[in-house]
C-alpha cells in the first residue's frame, strides 16, 4: 500500500506521518477508488489497474494561462523503462516533472486531470510533495554535484530525511547500484567536483537511489556525456530496471530505442488563430513497434526525419 497520505488525525496535528500508520489509512483507499474512473490509458495490453505504477488520465499542465500540454493519458508499468521523445517544446520535461510534483516548485505551474501513483492521486492536497519526491527520484541533464565530498553528496538525501545511523551502508550500496563504487571507494572524501561528467551523472543516480525511491525520472541524463559515458549510463539503466521503474526523456531516438520498453511520442499542436503551441501525446506503445512500424503518421514523420 502506498503511504503518501497522512491520516486525518495526524493531519489535524499538522505533522507528517509514519508509514505504518498510513498503511491502514482508509482515506487512501477512498481517494484511490474515487479517482480511477475515467482512464483511457493508451496501452496495447492490459494490466490490472492495481499493478500500475502510474496511471495518468487527461493530464494538462498550465504555466499561468498557457496550456503547455493537454489531455495526456498514459499508464506506466512497474520495472519498465519508458522513454518520452518528441520535438523541443512539446512538453516532455513538463510531463516528466508532473510525475513527482516538481512542477510545484514553479509558481505559475498548474496541473489538471489525474495522476495516480499506485492508485493514489499524487495531487491530492493531503499528499506530501517531499515524500513524493523521495519515492520518485529525479536525475537531471546536468549533474550539478554539491561542492562537497562524494560521500556527502550521496548521504545528503538520507541526512535531510533525518537518518543518522547506517549512512555508510546507504552510501556504499547506492554507489554500487550506480556502478560507481569501484571507481570511487578509495576517495569517498574527495570533492565530487573533480569527477568526470559521466561519473558525476552516475553520482546523481546514486544520490537519487540513496533516498530509496521506487521510480527514477531522468531528463536527458546523457545529453552532456560522450558516447562511452552514455553507454555506461544506458547499461546502468538496464541493471536498475530490476529494481526501479524508470522514465527517461531523451532527444536521442537511438537511445530511446536501445534502452526503453515503451516509448511515448509527444508533439506540438499549433493553433492557427492564436498561434498557441500545445504539447500532445501522439502515440504510446512498445518501443519496438513505435520505431519499426508506428501507427500514427506524425510519429512516422518524426522518427524518419521527414518533418521538423
Amino acid at each position, binding site marked *: 500500500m502506498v503511504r503518501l497520505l497522512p491520516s486525518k488525525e495526524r493531519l489535524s496535528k499538522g505533522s507528517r506521518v509514519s508509514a505504518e500508520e498510513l498503511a491502514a489509512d482508509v482515506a487512501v483507499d477512498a481517494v484511490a477508488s474515487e479517482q480511477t474512473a475515467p482512464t483511457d490509458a493508451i496501452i496495447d495490453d492490459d494490466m490490472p489497474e492495481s499493478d500500475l505504477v502510474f496511471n495518468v488520465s487527461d493530464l494538462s499542465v498550465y504555466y499561468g494561462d498557457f496550456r503547455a500540454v493537454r489531455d495526456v493519458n498514459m499508464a506506466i508499468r512497474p520495472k519498465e523503462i519508458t522513454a518520452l521523445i518528441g520535438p523541443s517544446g512539446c512538453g516532455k520535461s513538463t510531463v516528466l516533472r508532473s510525475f513527482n510534483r516538481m512542477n510545484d516548485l514553479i509558481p505559475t505551474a498548474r496541473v489538471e486531470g489525474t495522476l495516480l501513483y499506485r492508485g493514489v492521486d499524487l495531487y491530492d492536497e493531503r499528499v506530501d510533495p517531499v515524500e513524493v519526491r523521495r519515492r520518485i527520484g529525479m536525475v537531471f541533464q546536468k549533474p550539478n554535484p554539491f561542492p562537497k565530498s562524494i560521500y556527502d553528496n550521496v548521504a545528503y538525501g538520507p541526512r535531510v530525511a533525518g537518518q543518522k545511523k547506517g549512512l555508510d551502508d546507504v552510501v556504499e550500496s547506492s554507489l554500487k547500484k550506480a556502478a560507481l563504487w569501484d571507481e570511487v571507494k578509495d576517495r569517498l572524501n574527495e570533492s565530487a567536483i573533480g569527477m568526470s561528467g559521466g561519473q558525476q551523472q552516475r553520482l546523481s543516480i546514486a544520490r537519487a537511489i540513496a533516498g530509496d525511491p521506487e521510480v527514477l525520472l531522468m531528463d536527458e541524463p546523457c545529453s552532456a556525456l560522450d558516447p562511452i559515458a552514455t553507454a555506461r549510463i544506458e547499461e546502468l539503466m538496464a541493471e536498475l530496471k530490476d529494481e526501479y521503474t524508470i522514465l527517461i526523456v531523451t532527444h536521442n531516438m537511438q537511445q530511446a530505442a536501445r534502452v526503453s520498453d515503451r516509448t511515448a511520442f509527444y*508533439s506540438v499542436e499549433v493553433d492557427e488563430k492564436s498561434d498557441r503551441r500545445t504539447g500532445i501525446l501522439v502515440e504510446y506503445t512498445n518501443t519496438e513497434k513505435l520505431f*519499426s512500424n508506428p501507427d500514427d503518421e506524425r510519429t512516422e514523420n518524426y522518427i*524518419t526525419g*521527414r*518533418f*521538423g
Partner: protein
Amino acid sequence: MSQIELRGNFHEELNIVSDTIVTLAAHVTEAIPRATEALINNDLELAQEVISHDDELDLLSLQIEERCYALIALQQPMAIDMRSIVTAMKINGEYERSGDLAVNICKGVRRIYGISLSPTLRGLVTSMGEEAVRLTRVSVDAYAEGSEGLAAALPDMDDRLDDLQADFIQEIFAAHSRGELKLEETVQLALVARFYERIGDHAVNIGDRVMYMVTGESTESAGAARARAAQEGDEAE
C-alpha cells in the same frame, strides 16, 4: 508544424537504392526471355551473352548492398525507412539469384546442345519463360509502387508456373520412355524446369518482402508457423 524535409539527402539516397533495384530487376526480366530463346533455338552464342552479362548484374547488386550498409551505418533509419532498407537488401538478393538462374538455364543449353525439342516441349518452355518473366515484372511493380495488392497476387500467379513445370516434367519423362530423349538430356531439362520454377519462388519472396515494407508485418511461411507452434508448445509444458 512546418513541413521541412529534414533528411533530404537520406531519402534521396533511399530513392537511388530503389531505382537501382528496379534497374537490376529490369536486367533480370530481360535475361529470362533471352535464356528461353537460347534454349529453344539451340543458340550457344546468345547463351554465352546472357552468362557474360550476369557479371554486370552482380556488380549492380553489390552496389545496392554497399549503399544499404552505408545508409544503415550512417543514418540508423527507423520505421518505413528501416523497413525499406531491409526490404531492399533482401529483394536485392532475390533478384541477384533470379539472374543466376537465367545463367543456369543458359549453362543447361550448352549441356544439351544439339537436341531438338518436340513442339509440345517447346510450347511448355515458352510458357514457363513467359510466366517467370510475368512474375518477376509484377514483383518489381509491387516493389516500385509499394503495392500490397500486386504483392498479394504473386502466390496465385506462381501456381500457374508450378503447374507448367509439373506438366513439363511429365512430358520429358514420357519423351524419355519413348526413346526421344536420352537420360542425360532428360535430367538437364528437368533441372532447367526447376530453374524457371525457382525464379517464380523468388518473385513470391519479393512479394512477401514488399508486404513487410508496406505493412510492417512479416509473412510467416507454413514451415515457420509449424516451428513456432512447436516452440510455443514446448514453452507451455
